[in-house]
């Protein structure tokens, strides 16, 4: 093994050697630097391998020919080898990244860079306190030197502010070191620790100064204005070094020095870290500059790591795993993003949409953003999960809330950024200038992150229980993205069929899961069929479609809460990106993500609260939560964000309406059932015996009823066909929630019938309407009309769809209505029930508007030549219609086993529904789908034949054989009747549809932004203000501590 001292020797030696070079020898200087850095990587990696392969013994390196405390010693153990390794790898890649910029400057850059690297290596390895001061200063000087190389005067100003701030901070450090020596007589950490120090006022003051200085180096909020300016002004390659490199060294330093203090720093670290995490992320919301935004995020993440450091004693054996997971995500993602920023060379985050010119860069950008936010399967997810669960076990609920709030704000601005890059306005400039040395480092970091995910998944407590096959398949799809769409589509459909076949025997005896698996898989396959109509590559569609379906299937398969949450997040992520693909869906996808993120964190807290007091993650722990009121309510609200309950519904219409034609049915007909499944699982496990559950269910019942009313009412007033369907989904999900809240056998049967029906008709309707929209290229219903002639098939599909939706016998919708009456009357929720029935009749209004405005009335000139939708849209529609017909005629096929299953479960032992052949009956009434179908069918055919006989000589009328009255073909929206069709209804009941929820959330949004915007003005830009912040910060912490 090479002695690590040689890292320092070689780096320093090369730096000196290069210093002797002439300017024209800069090529040689570059090569020498790369070799030196590569050597450093080699040494630290070999030591890391050495330690990870079972070696325990820590290497002590003595310098100056004497033993400590008389000379400085360095230490190389597992931790040191890990941190020097990541820093050296970063250094090597960072240098390669900056290579061309350094060349332009001559040799200076290389020299300073090598010195910086050397300083960081020493900082990690040294055991001497004064040495720490020296090399912190060296690192600061080197950083300032690198900043100096940039010509921009703003960079110089930032560099000066940085120097002043760091100078003041290190003055305190030095004073601390002096007094430390005065009281302890040594500067060696180990010697001091071995001497069993006693707490004297003097020495604790000295250690306070040392530690607070290191903490200030970590840029705690709000004493961090100087650092933000540096992040913004510096060359992104250098920002990457500061954010990932220097910060790493400093945090390890803090970790190393913490044992010195006999004071308990734990609460202070936690508080400092959390304030930084939450504060910095809130301020980030108002930020528009990309690099500065990364700075905010970077500071926030470091704050998060500080918190974890503070929690170390409480986390016990899990500390290392949690810390590493968070650290490695931040380290890789932040460096990667800064590097990408250097390629983009744009200030405003809006202009980053130029990334779309290069799919590799776009992919990496998305990858790093998601890594930062901590979506599964990205590395930080595992750490966050473990952390929250540990905190829950120790009753740190406030901490959980704060951490997740901070994460939420971070997610907010990162997703906004992500959305703007994916869908923001196109940049006019031609292409990005991409050089190989700029793209190599982020590519390697992406690969490292994937590897890290793999290892973290294996190391995490529940990771081994995950089914990773879908994840591998998603990665495969990313790699195959160059293939034409139809090949990938076939591949995905085949995979889903195979998966279904594999899954079936596992859940065959669980009708509940079987039904939802059927909806997810069958629905998935059907909706994917529509994708065959799309030509080209359809880049980036299939991996996310599979991600969504994999998530949904994961919900079904989940055996523990970890798997459940993992799948939930996977589904959210996939669906978000699918929705984002729509032409105008930027803001809607963002809203969807915000609500989903908030919802997911509520679920997270809910799970954590339920976990409290248990020792397993099994799903069953939900049935014995020690805090039923809180945990169940939070879980329910979390699921309700996905099912778009009233108040949480504002994201849905836009998201579903603006998605692509074949994505709308996926997210509406299928995805929403994910939320329903979550609710079902929750209700099943929590039961309805206790008073808390009772109250919760009662409230949810009302919420469901009101959702149904408002959703349907809003649908009536829409002019946009897809929005109309989307609001109708809100209403329908309201029914389902309402029926689930009954917690009776019939109630659940109703809810499941509704779920199946909603899947069938809403997928059908969205496919049909989506196809029409694809052909006529408008969503506005009043711009269509008379399309029945051109699209007879779509008309039939919509007709069947709305008859089912409206619950008109003989089709399957009626089954839901009938069960509903029975459920309402047996449960005794009459008024909520009446409200829901009223909503049901309102549904007729929009059903009529939908079919009338699109297919009937006067044909429009410009659509005279449109064709029927592609066959690939018709096939799934036909399958769905057959499904509806079968379910209508023989509802017993599905409802009977379901009823039996519910009756056998513990919660609904009484089965009031009895079947006699095909006739269902309860105490209240009876209904025979089959016979009704028969009677109506026979009668309908007879009457039709009769009319045909009577009017056999009927003659066809063309459009212009009759008058045009009241409709002027130009300017349709003012004269077309179906524009504002139900204005009278609005006059009468419009007050129920006022956008209160939208107003409320807009208010929350603007308050948050205003708070963020006014708070960030503490960073005045004046270097002296920053110094004052630092001084006040030290004072406040001191006063709190002593």
């Amino acid at each position, binding site marked *: 093994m090479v002695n690590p001292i040689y890292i320092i020797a070689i780096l320093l030696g090369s730096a000196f050697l290069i210093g002797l070079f002439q300017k024209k020898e800069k090529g040689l200087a570059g090569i020498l630097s790369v070799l030196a850095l590569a050597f450093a990587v080699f040494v630290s990696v070999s030591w890391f391998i050495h330690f990870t392969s079972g070696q325990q013994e820590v290497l002590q390196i003595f310098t100056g020919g004497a033993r400590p405390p008389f000379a400085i010693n360095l230490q190389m153990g597992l931790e040191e080898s890990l941190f020097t390794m990541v820093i050296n790898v970063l250094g090597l890649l960072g240098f390669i990244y900056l290579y061309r910029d350094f060349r332009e400057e001559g040799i200076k850059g290389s020299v300073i860079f090598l010195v910086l690297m050397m300083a960081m290596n020493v900082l990690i390895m040294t055991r001497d306190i*004064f040495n720490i*001061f*020296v090399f912190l*200063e*060296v690192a*600061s*000087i080197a950083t*300032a*030197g690198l900043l*100096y190389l940039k010509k921009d*005067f*703003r960079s*110089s*100003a*930032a*560099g*000066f*502010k940085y*120097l*002043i701030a760091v*100078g*003041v901070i290190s*003055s305190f450090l*030095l*004073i601390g*070191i*002096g*007094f430390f*020596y*005065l009281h302890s007589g040594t*500067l060696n950490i180990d010697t001091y620790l071995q001497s069993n120090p006693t707490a004297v006022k003097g020495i604790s003051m000295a250690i306070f100064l040392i530690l607070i200085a290191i903490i200030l180096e970590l840029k705690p909020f709000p004493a961090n*204005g100087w650092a*933000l*300016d540096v992040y*913004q*002004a510096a060359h992104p390659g250098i920002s990457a070094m500061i954010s990932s490199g220097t910060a790493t060294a400093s945090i390890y330093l803090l970790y190393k020095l913490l044992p010195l203090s006999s004071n308990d720093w734990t609460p202070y670290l936690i508080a400092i870290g959390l304030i930084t995490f939450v504060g910095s992320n809130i301020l980030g919301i*108002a*930020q528009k500059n990309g690099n500065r935004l990364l700075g905010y995020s970077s500071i926030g993440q470091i704050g998060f790591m500080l918190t974890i450091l503070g929690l170390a004693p409480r986390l016990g054996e899990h500390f290392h795993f949690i810390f590493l997971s968070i650290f490695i995500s931040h380290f890789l993602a932040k460096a990667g993003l800064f590097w990408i920023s250097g390629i983009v060379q744009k200030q405003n985050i809006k202009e980053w949409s130029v990334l779309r010119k290069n799919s590799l860069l776009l992919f990496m950008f998305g990858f790093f953003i998601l890594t930062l936010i901590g979506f599964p399967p990205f590395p930080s997810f595992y750490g966050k999960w473990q952390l929250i669960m540990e905190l829950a076990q120790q009753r740190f609920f406030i901490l959980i809330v704060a951490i997740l709030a901070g994460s939420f704000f971070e997610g907010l601005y990162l997703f906004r950024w992500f959305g703007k890059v994916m869908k923001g306005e196109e940049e006019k400039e031609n292409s990005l200038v991409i050089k190989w040395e700029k793209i190599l480092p982020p590519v390697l970091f992406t690969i490292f992150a994937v590897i890290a995910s793999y290892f973290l998944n294996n190391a995490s407590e529940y990771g081994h229980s995950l089914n990773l096959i879908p994840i591998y398949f998603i990665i495969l799809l990313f790699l195959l993205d160059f293939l034409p769409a139809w090949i990938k589509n076939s591949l995905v459909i085949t995979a889903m069929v195979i998966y279904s076949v594999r899954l079936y025997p596992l859940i065959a005896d669980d009708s509940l899961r079987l039904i939802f698996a059927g909806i997810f898989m069958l629905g998935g396959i059907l909706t994917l069929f529509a994708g065959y109509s799309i030509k080209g590559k359809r880049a980036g569609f299939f991996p996310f479609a599979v991600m969504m379906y994999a998530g949904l299937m994961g919900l079904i398969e989940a055996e523990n809460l970890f798997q459940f949450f993992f799948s939930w997040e996977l589904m959210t992520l996939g669906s978000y990106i699918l929705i984002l693909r729509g032409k105008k869906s930027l803001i809607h996808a963002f809203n969807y993500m915000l609500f989903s993120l908030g919802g997911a964190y509520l679920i997270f807290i809910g799970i954590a609260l339920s976990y409290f007091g248990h020792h397993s993650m099994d799903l069953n722990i939900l049935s014995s939560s020690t805090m039923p009121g809180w945990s169940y309510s939070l879980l329910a609200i979390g699921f309700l964000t996905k099912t778009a309950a009233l108040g949480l519904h504002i994201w849905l219409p836009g998201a579903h309406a603006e998605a692509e034609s074949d994505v709308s049915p996926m997210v509406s007909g299928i995805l929403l059932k994910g939320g329903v499944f979550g609710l079902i699982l929750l209700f099943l496990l929590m039961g309805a015996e206790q008073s808390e559950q009772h109250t919760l269910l009662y409230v949810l019942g009302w919420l469901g009823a009101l959702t149904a009313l408002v959703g349907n009412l809003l649908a009536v007033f829409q002019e946009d066909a897809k929005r109309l369907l989307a609001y109708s989904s809100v209403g329908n999900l309201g029914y389902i929630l309402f029926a689930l809240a009954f917690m009776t056998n019939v109630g659940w049967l109703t809810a499941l019938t509704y779920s199946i029906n909603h899947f069938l008709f809403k997928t059908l309707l969205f496919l049909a309407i989506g196809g029409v929209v694809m052909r006529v290229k408008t969503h506005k219903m009043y711009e269509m009309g008379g399309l029945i002639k051109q699209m007879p098939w779509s008309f039939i599909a919509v007709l069947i769809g709305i008859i089912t939706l409206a619950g008109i016998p003989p089709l399957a919708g009626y089954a839901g209505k009938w069960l509903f009456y029975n459920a309402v009357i047996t449960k005794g929720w009459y008024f909520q029930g009446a409200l829901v029935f009223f909503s049901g009749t309102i549904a007729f209004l929009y059903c009529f508007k939908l079919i009338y405005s699109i297919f009937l009335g006067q044909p429009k000139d410009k659509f005279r030549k449109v064709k029927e939708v592609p066959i690939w849209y018709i096939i799934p529609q036909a399958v769905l219609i057959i499904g509806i017909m079968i379910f209508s005629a023989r509802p017993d096929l599905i409802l009977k086993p379901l009823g039996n299953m519910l009756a056998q479960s513990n919660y609904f032992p009484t089965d009031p529904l009895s079947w006699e052949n095909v006739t269902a009956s309860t105490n209240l009434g009876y209904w025979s789908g089959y016979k009704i179908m028969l009677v109506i069918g026979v009668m309908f055919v007879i009457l039709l034949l009769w009319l045909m006989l009577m009017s056999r000589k009927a003659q066809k009328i063309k459009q212009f054989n009759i008058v045009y009255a009241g409709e002027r073909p130009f300017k349709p929206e003012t004269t077309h009747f179906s524009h504002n069709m139900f204005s009278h209804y609005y006059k009468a009941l419009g007050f129920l549809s006022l956008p209160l929820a939208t107003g409320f959330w807009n208010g929350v949004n603007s308050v948050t932004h205003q708070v963020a915007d006014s708070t*960030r*003005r503490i*960073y*005045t*830009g*004046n*270097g*002296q203000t920053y*110094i*004052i912040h630092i*001084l006040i910060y030290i004072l406040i912490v001191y006063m709190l501590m002593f």
Partner: protein
Amino acid sequence: MKYLGLEYITVIAGFLLLIVGLWGIISQKNIIKMIISFSIIDTSIHLLLVAIGFIRNRTAPIIDSSVDKLKAADQITDPLPQALVLTAIVIGIGITGLMLTYALKLYRQNKSLEINQYKSLKW
């Protein structure tokens, strides 16, 4: 304590200078004056460090004619703080030098040495 010992004077002077320096750095708008204030802080710390190593009635830790080589450890003051001071001075000079370079660069670019003028990066 009959009279104020040298070490106390040094410590008090050190702290006074520290406060002066800090005050200067946050109140003076001129960049050069800020750098000078920083140097004052530096000096104050050096004073403090020297005071820490001081042991009354002993000589400087330099082995020359005034010190018995064999009893050196009992005759000289603690050499370590003095070494620290030396290092700190070097580093302080480095930083001051870099600050001055920045000042020069800023002045060349913007013709101003007022710290208030450099607020284009904020929030």
